[in-house]
């Protein structure tokens, strides 16, 4: 896996979907997480940190957002992917996330959740990305936490037990993580904000109902998990259904831990870190490893490298790199 991922790394930094392709923040996020799960010296050493920082700089936009790849689209996923890999590998240059906080905050809308870009509908995937990114940046308190809490708890379906991605849409197993995963983040944020009435045993969603939905409705009998009955299995849903199941099984904060395992003992999964979605031990180990290395000296600043994107024909309405 280390070797394959090394083949997916771009010479200009970051990881691509496959060998020879251009780097993109989503596979970069996935590759770094995978390497941290493996957690060996070999795995950590695959990552070219200097180039990775260059790559992140090349995606940074003047308004604080990031494009997903050179010549690509902007949305809040990129802030999360960038913050995740930068924090794990210890390459957080001082100004790298300048204005990113404000940009993410502008994605919180009238519904209380966050949208992909400012103005759009609140959506579970994007809300998770926005909040988790802010947690990494230490700025989650700047959100309207109460409004966000109301929005996310309202996304659990009273009949199915699973979560929907947006108001008035259908349940989907993957939101077991994107949506339910917000509750541990909110719990900690509210606690840090001085909230005294938080439970010490349960997250603020129906943990049992979510486990029931996942185990009873989202399993393929030949293996793997899925969106909802009738859909086909895939690795994305397998990952996020299981991640959500782990969240639903394990309550934990500073001093208190509480488990709810629906069904037999073997159903117990390992706990997952609500920001990175890999095991907390793996996060700690990676952070410890990369802290011993110094933050690379980024001689580059924000903006794409020359010749990496066709220059637009003379057109006054053409905006910054998108």
């Amino acid at each position, binding site marked *: *896996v280390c*070797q*394959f991922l*090394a*083949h997916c790394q771009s010479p200009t930094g970051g990881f*691509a*979907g*496959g*060998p*020879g*392709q*251009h780097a*993109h923040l989503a596979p970069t996020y996935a590759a770094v997480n995978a390497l941290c799960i493996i957690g060996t010296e070999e795995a950590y050493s695959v990552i070219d940190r200097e180039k990775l920082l260059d790559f992140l700089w090349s995606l940074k936009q003047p308004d604080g957002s990031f494009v*997903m*790849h*050179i*010549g*690509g*689209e902007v949305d809040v996923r990129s802030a999360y992917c960038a913050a995740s890999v930068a924090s794990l590998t210890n390459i957080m240059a001082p100004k790298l996330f300048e204005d990113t906080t404000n940009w993410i905050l502008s994605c919180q*809308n*009238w*519904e*209380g959740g966050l949208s*992909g*870009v400012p*103005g*759009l*509908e609140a959506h579970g995937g994007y809300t998770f990305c926005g909040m988790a990114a802010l947690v990494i940046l230490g700025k989650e308190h700047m959100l309207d936490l109460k*409004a966000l*809490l*109301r929005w996310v*708890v*309202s996304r659990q*379906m*009273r009949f199915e*037990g699973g979560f929907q991605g*947006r*108001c*008035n*849409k259908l349940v989907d197993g993957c939101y077991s993580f994107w949506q339910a995963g917000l509750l541990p983040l909110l719990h900690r944020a509210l606690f840090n904000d001085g909230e*005294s*009435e*938080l*439970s010490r045993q*349960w*997250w*603020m*969603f*129906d943990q049992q109902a979510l486990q029931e939905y996942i185990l009873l409705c989202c399993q393929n009998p030949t293996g793997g998990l899925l969106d909802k009955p009738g859909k086909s299995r*895939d690795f*994305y849903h397998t990952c996020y259904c299981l991640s959500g199941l782990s969240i639903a099984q394990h309550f934990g904060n500073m001093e208190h831990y509480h488990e709810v395992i629906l069904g037999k003992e073997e159903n117990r999964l390992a706990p997952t870190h609500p920001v990175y979605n890999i095991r907390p031990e793996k996060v700690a180990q990676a952070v410890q490893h990369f802290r011993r290395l110094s933050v690379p000296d980024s001689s580059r600043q924000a903006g794409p490298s020359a010749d990496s994107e*066709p*220059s*637009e*024909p003379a*057109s006054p*309405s*053409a*905006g910054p790199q*998108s």
Partner: protein
Amino acid sequence: MSSAEEPSSEAPEVKEHKEFDVEAEDHFGDSYGAEPTRYIFYRDRKEWADLEPVPQDDGPDPVVKIAYSEKFADVYDYFRALLKKDERSERAFALTADAIELNAANYTVWHYRRVLLQALSKDLREEMKYITNIIEDQPKNYQVWHHRRMVVEWLNDPSEELEFIADTLSQDAKNYHAWQHRQWVIQEYKLWDNELEFVENLLVEDVRNNSAWNQRHFVISHTTGFSDPAVVQREIQYCLNQIRKAPHNESAWNYLKGMLQDRGLSSRPGLLEKVLELKETHCSPYLLAFLFDCYEDALESSFQKENMEQEQKETLKKALEICELLAQEKDTIRKEYWQFLGRSVKNKYGGNGPSNDPVAEEVKQSVPVSEAQEIS
């Protein structure tokens, strides 16, 4: 698109070239009439003989190896060859279409196609037609919408956009990419004029379309804004009308709250009364939650003001009763949340607060039990 001369004996096979789309068909070339055109691999095409294909370099010990079809591997072997050479030619441009058809999510191919569009000064109007067809086929793909945006920007011509997006939305009224593109076009080219009407039509078709409610908020906040009292009054009326028609529509309630929350829900005179009326005939967990929000807002406004203690205690009691009702009966899936809110509000506005006033304590305990019957 692809040249086809010699007959091919290739048989159809199960395709793995579209990631999670096991039903995708492989079009070998349109076959109208008696003589079907046969597909020819790039490796067998004379006009490509000068180019050495580049196989994918997975390394010595590939993991999670994808079983590409022969056609897929052939096209992409040649794509990699072109990329390596940075060849900017018509044949390269033609090949990108094949590569896109095989995997429209390959952002590297799209990037290269854009480089070629510029380098070869291709007709962008033709490109608009092309991308229109691709999106119609695969509307839930990031790359295709981004590509369309780039072409629209280069042409500086949004004139087809609103109609095109409307057409996409008529097939899936909640397509996130479509809405994103729509908001970009409207904002960039200032096409606000007819959007509220468009939204209202969508809500007539489906009053539960949350994307449409969001667009409503988007249009108003960027045009008249929500400070104008006439606008707010109109919107409140609109919400209440929709609620009467479909009481269990969460979107309408969320919109009502979302619109008013910055100014304070309890600042609207008469609204609380209207909602309490609706409670008799059009009750829902959303209505009850809205009532709670009104009470909480009232508590916040009157917090630690003088001569408000009795009123505050009444309001707090009502707020707590709603939490209890929702947690135990009307919205039990959110029990943990409603119980937390109850504790939170009690802690903040309850008599056990900083001002430990023994008189207030006594009053709290003597509130008549009969009030609890009001809600059920």
